[in-house]
C-alpha cells in the first residue's frame, strides 16, 4: 500500500498570518529584473507543437523492441484473505512470458486485500490482449471477510473491526479562544451539517510504467509527477541502489496529486520485466484508475456557528470526519480563511474498504471551503447582510498574501454583483438564476533542493537541464521564459530539457511547488552562465564583464548597444569550451501563499433539478507571473475541475457489496464542452513577491461559489455535494412540505 500523505495540517488554510512576513532578500544579482522582456508575457507553450501533432511521447506511447504488456490481477472483493494463488494456467497461456504473485497467501502480513482493486498477482505477455487473457486465468481463492464501505456504518459502534486499532481514528481537540463567550456574543446561531463526497483523479493518461533492465540497472518510463521520488521508490521497492535507476517522464497526461510514486504497478512492471528478461509496459485501465490510484477524501462537518448582530463572526464549533479509504487520513482545514475568534474542532478519520486517498489538487481545501463558504452564506442571511460585505467584514487583515477584500470589491463590480437579487429568484417560470461567491488560498511556495544546469555552446544554443517534470502545467515554457528573459533572447531560442533523473535534481510536482522551486534555480543558473559568457566577451570588446548586458539578442555595453556582439557571435568565442553551470534554489526569488476570489452565476431548472453554470469570474494572484498563457490556463482548469466536483463527478459504491458501480467515464460524469460556462480570468501581478505556484488555488472555491449561487437562485440551501438533480428536487420538495 502506498503511504498516503498523513495528517494534513488541519489548521492550514487560515490565510494571512506568518506567511506574510517578508522573505529574506535574494542575492541582488539574481533578483528578478525590474524591466521584463519575456517574463509575464503570453509566450506560446513551447511543447505545443509536439503535443498537437501527436509526436509527444507519453509513457503510454513508449514502444520498445521486444516489449511485453503487463496486466495486474486485482481483488474483486473489498476485503478478503487470499487462500491461494495459482499461476499455472496463466503461465501456460499463449504468449505469456512472466507471471508473479504480489500477495503471499502464506504470509499473514501480505495475504489480505483491503479494497476492491487491491493488487494480487500479475502477468506479462507478448500482446496486451493475451496479457488480459492470461490474467483471467490466474486462479485466486479468496476467503471473503466482512467489509466496511459506508462511513456511517464504520462510525457506528456495532461495525466489525476491519482495521487494526479501530475503524475510526479520533484526532485531538483543537481549540482557540473562549467558545462559550463567543456563543454568548452571538445574536444568531446556525447549526447545520455540511458534506462533500469522494471523487477520483481520473488522469486522462492512466498510471503506469515501461520498465527495461540492463543487468541490474533499470530504466523506467513512468507517468509520474515526481521523477526523483519515483526513482527512490523503485530503488527501495526493488532493493537496488537508486544510482541504478533512471526514471524518464518526458510528457505525462495529468496527475493532480495521484502520481507521486511508482506505486504497486510500477514495481510490478519492473518485476515482470526482470522475470521476462524483456521490457514490459504496464498501463492501468480506467477501472483500475478509479479503484486503486487515489481519491479525494470525503468531508462532513457538523457545525454550530455564531454571528453578532452587527455581522461579526463570534464562534465556531465543529465535529468533522471524512474517509480517505483503507487506513488513510481525511483531513481538511476548517474553518477556512474567515476569522472566528473563538473556535473548537474535533476531527475523525474514518477507515473504509476502498482504495486509499492521495493528494488531489489542493488537498483538503475544496472541502474546507465548501463547508465554510456555505455556512457564511447562511450566516450573512441571518444578519441580512450582503454576502460580499459580510465576507469582507470577517477576513484576516489585508496583506500581500491576503488580498481577498480588494479582490471581492473588484470582482463584485466586474461581475455585476449589484444586480444580484436576494435569496430566492423572484422570477416566474421554472428557470431561476443566482450568483454566489467564495474565496481561496494556497501555499504554493518553492523549496530546495531544486537545481538546474545551463549549458551554452559555441553555436549559441542554450540548454537548460532540470530534473523536474511537466504534468501539464507548462514547466518547459516556464524555464524557457526565465532563461530567455535573463539572456535577452526569445523563448524559442531556449531548449529546456526535463523529465529525466540524469539531470540535476528537483522536487516533485505537488502542492503547486514546481514553478516556485524551478524558477529560482533556473534564474540563478542562467545568471551564472551569463556571467561566464560575459567573461569571454569582455576582452574582445575591451570592457569589464560587469559593463556588459544581454538584451535584444546581443551582448553589449550597458547604455551603448552598438558596442557589442550578436548572441551567436558572442557564443563563438566559447570555441571548444562550452559553458555549463548550475544553479541551486535560494529563498528570496519565490514566496508562499496566494489569494483568490471567484464569482459564479447559475441557472436552475426547478422542474428538473438541473443546474447550469453560466458564468464564472476568477481574480487570482500568484506573485510574479512568469508565463501568462500557461498561468491563466491553470485557472481555467482549476475552475472546471471544481465545477465537476460541484455538479458531476462522484465515486458511487454499491451499499451492499462495497463495489464501485461507476468505474468508467460514462457514469462517472465529467463536464464536456456544452457544460462549461463563460469563464473570465483576471491574474493579479505581484512581481515583488517572486514566483508562487498557481495550480491549486483556483480549484478550491468554484464549487462553493456555485453552491451559493444555486442557493441564491432557488432560495434553499443544499448542504452537500454534488448538486445532483435528485438533491435539488428533494431540497425544493422539503421546502414546499
Amino acid at each position, binding site marked *: 500500500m502506498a503511504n498516503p500523505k498523513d495528517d494534513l495540517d488541519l489548521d492550514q488554510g487560515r490565510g494571512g498570518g506568518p506567511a506574510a512576513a517578508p522573505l529574506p532578500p535574494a542575492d541582488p544579482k539574481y533578483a528578478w529584473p525590474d524591466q521584463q522582456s519575456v517574463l509575464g508575457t503570453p509566450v506560446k507553450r513551447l511543447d505545443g507543437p509536439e503535443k498537437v501533432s501527436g509526436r509527444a511521447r507519453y509513457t503510454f506511447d513508449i514502444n520498445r523492441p521486444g516489449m511485453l504488456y503487463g496486466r495486474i490481477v486485482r481483488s474483486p472483493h473489498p476485503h478478503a484473505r487470499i487462500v491461494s494463488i495459482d499461476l499455472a494456467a496463466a503461465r501456460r497461456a499463449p504468449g505469456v512470458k512472466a507471471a508473479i504473485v504480489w500477495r503471499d497467501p502464506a504470509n499473514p502480513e501480505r495475504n489480505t486485500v483491503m479494497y476492491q482493486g487491491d493488487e494480487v498477482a500479475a502477468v506479462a505477455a507478448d500482446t496486451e490482449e493475451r496479457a488480459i487473457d492470461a490474467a483471467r486465468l490466474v486462479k485466486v481463492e479468496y476467503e471473503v471477510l466482512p467489509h466496511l464501505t459506508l462511513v456511517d456504518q464504520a462510525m457506528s459502534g456495532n461495525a466489525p473491526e476491519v482495521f487494526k486499532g479501530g475503524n475510526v481514528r479520533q484526532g485531538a481537540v483543537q481549540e482557540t479562544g473562549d467558545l462559550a463567550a463567543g456563543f454568548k456574543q452571538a445574536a444568531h446561531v446556525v447549526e447545520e451539517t455540511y458534506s462533500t463526497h469522494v471523487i477520483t483523479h481520473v488522469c486522462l493518461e492512466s498510471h503506469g510504467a515501461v520498465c527495461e533492465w540492463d543487468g541490474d540497472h533499470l530504466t523506467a518510463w513512468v507517468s509520474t509527477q515526481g521523477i526523483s521520488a519515483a526513482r527512490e521508490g523503485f530503488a527501495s521497492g526493488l532493493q537496488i541502489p537508486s544510482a541504478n535507476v533512471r526514471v524518464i517522464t518526458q510528457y505525462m497526461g495529468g496527475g493532480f496529486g495521484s502520481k507521486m510514486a511508482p506505486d504497486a504497478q510500477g514495481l510490478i512492471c519492473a518485476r515482470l520485466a526482470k522475470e521476462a528478461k524483456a521490457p514490459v509496459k504496464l498501463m492501468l485501465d480506467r477501472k483500475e484508475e478509479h479503484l486503486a490510484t487515489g481519491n479525494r477524501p470525503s468531508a462532513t462537518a457538523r457545525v454550530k456557528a455564531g454571528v453578532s448582530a452587527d455581522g461579526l463572526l463570534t464562534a465556531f464549533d465543529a465535529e468533522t470526519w471524512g474517509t480517505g479509504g483503507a487506513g488513510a487520513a481525511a483531513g481538511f482545514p476548517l474553518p477556512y480563511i474567515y476569522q472566528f475568534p473563538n473556535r473548537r474542532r474535533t476531527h475523525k478519520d474514518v477507515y473504509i474498504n476502498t482504495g486509499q486517498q492521495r493528494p488531489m489538487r489542493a488537498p483538503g481545501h475544496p472541502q474546507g471551503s465548501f463547508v465554510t463558504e456555505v455556512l457564511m452564506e447562511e450566516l450573512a442571511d441571518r444578519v441580512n447582510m450582503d454576502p460580499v460585505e459580510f465576507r469582507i467584514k470577517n477576513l484576516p487583515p489585508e496583506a500581500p498574501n491576503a488580498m481577498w477584500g480588494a479582490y471581492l470589491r473588484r470582482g463584485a463590480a466586474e461581475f455585476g454583483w449589484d444586480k444580484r437579487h436576494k435569496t430566492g429568484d423572484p422570477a416566474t417560470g421554472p428557470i431561476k438564476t443566482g450568483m454566489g461567491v467564495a474565496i481561496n488560498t494556497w501555499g504554493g511556495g518553492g523549496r530546495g533542493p531544486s537545481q538546474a544546469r545551463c549549458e551554452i555552446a559555441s553555436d549559441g544554443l542554450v540548454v537548460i537541464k532540470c530534473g523536474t517534470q511537466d504534468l*501539464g502545467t507548462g514547466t518547459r515554457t516556464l524555464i524557457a521564459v526565465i532563461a530567455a528573459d535573463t539572456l535577452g533572447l526569445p523563448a524559442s531560442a531556449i531548449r529546456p530539457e526535463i523529465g529525466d533523473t540524469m539531470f540535476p535534481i528537483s522536487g516533485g510536482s505537488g502542492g503547486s511547488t514546481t514553478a516556485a522551486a524551478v524558477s529560482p534555480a533556473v534564474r540563478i543558473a542562467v545568471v551564472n552562465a551569463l556571467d561566464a559568457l560575459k567573461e569571454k566577451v569582455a576582452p574582445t570588446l575591451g570592457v569589464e564583464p560587469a559593463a556588459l548586458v544581454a538584451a535584444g539578442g546581443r551582448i553589449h555595453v550597458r547604455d551603448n548597444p552598438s558596442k557589442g556582439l550578436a548572441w551567436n557571435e558572442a557564443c563563438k568565442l566559447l570555441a571548444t569550451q562550452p559553458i555549463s553551470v548550475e544553479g541551486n534554489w535560494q529563498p528570496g526569488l519565490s514566496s508562499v501563499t496566494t489569494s483568490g476570489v471567484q464569482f459564479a452565476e447559475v441557472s436552475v431548472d426547478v422542474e428538473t433539478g438541473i443546474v447550469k453554470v453560466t458564468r464564472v469570474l476568477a481574480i487570482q494572484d500568484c506573485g510574479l507571473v512568469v508565463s501568462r498563457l500557461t498561468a491563466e*490556463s491553470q485557472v481555467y482548469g482549476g475552475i472546471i475541475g471544481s465545477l465537476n466536483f460541484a455538479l458531476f463527478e462522484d465515486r458511487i459504491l454499491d451499499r451492499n457489496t462495497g463495489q464501485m458501480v461507476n468505474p468508467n467515464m460514462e457514469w462517472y460524469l465529467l463536464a464536456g464542452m456544452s457544460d462549461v460556462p463563460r469563464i473570465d480570468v483576471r491574474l493579479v501581478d505581484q512581481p515583488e513577491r517572486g514566483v508562487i505556484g498557481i495550480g491549486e488555488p483556483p480549484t478550491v472555491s468554484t464549487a462553493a461559489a456555485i453552491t451559493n449561487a444555486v442557493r441564491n437562485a432557488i432560495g434553499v440551501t443544499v448542504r452537500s455535494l454534488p448538486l445532483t438533480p435528485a438533491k435539488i428536487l428533494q431540497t425544493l420538495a422539503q421546502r414546499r412540505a
Partner: protein
Amino acid sequence: MARKDDKPGGFAVSRRDFLKSAGVVSAVTAAAAPPELDAQGVAAGAAAGPGEVPVRLMVNGKRLDLMLEPRVTLLDALRMRADQTGNKRGCDRGACGACTMIVDGRAVYACSTLAIEVQGKAIRNVDGLANGTTLHPVQQAFCEKDALMCGFCTPGFIMASVALLEKTPAPTPEQIRRGLDGNICRCGTFSRIFEAVSSVKGVARG
C-alpha cells in the same frame, strides 16, 4: 541501450526496430485507389480468426498491412502494432474521445471500432495531420490559444475539431460546443479549445 544514451527521451529507438518486433507486415504509400475489401484473402461470409489474420488499412493515405486478431481495435492496431501513438487511449469505452480519428470523413472513437471492420476506408489520425513540420490550421490554433495542458486529450480534440470544421467551415458557437461534446479534457482546457476552434479560418470542406 539505456545508459549508453545520454539524450533525454532519447531512447527513441528507431521506429523500425519497434515495428519489426511488433509484427508489422508492411507499410507502403498506396499507388492509387484503396485496396479492394477482399484483398486480405478472407472470403466474404467466411469466418476470419479468432487468431491473427491479415488486415489491410489505409492510414493517412498509406497502406498498412498488419497481422491482427479480429478483436483488435483500430486504436490498438495503430498504437501497438504500427507505433502510431498520437491518438491516445483514455477510457477505452467511447466516452473520453482521446482516441478520436476520422474514418471516411467522420469522427469516430477508434477504441470502439475494430480494425478489421475499417478495411478499405480512409483512416486519418493525428499522426498524419500535419504536413511535415507545417501544422494543420487547427493544430496551429490550439498552440496559439494554449488550448492544451497535459495534452493527452489534445489529439482527440484536434481530430474532432478537424472533422467538425471540414463539414462546417464556419460553425456557430453552438455547433462548436455540440461538435466537441464527445471529448473530455480533465485538465479543464475547454474554454481555450472553444476559442481555438472559433478562431480557425479556411479549413477546406472535407
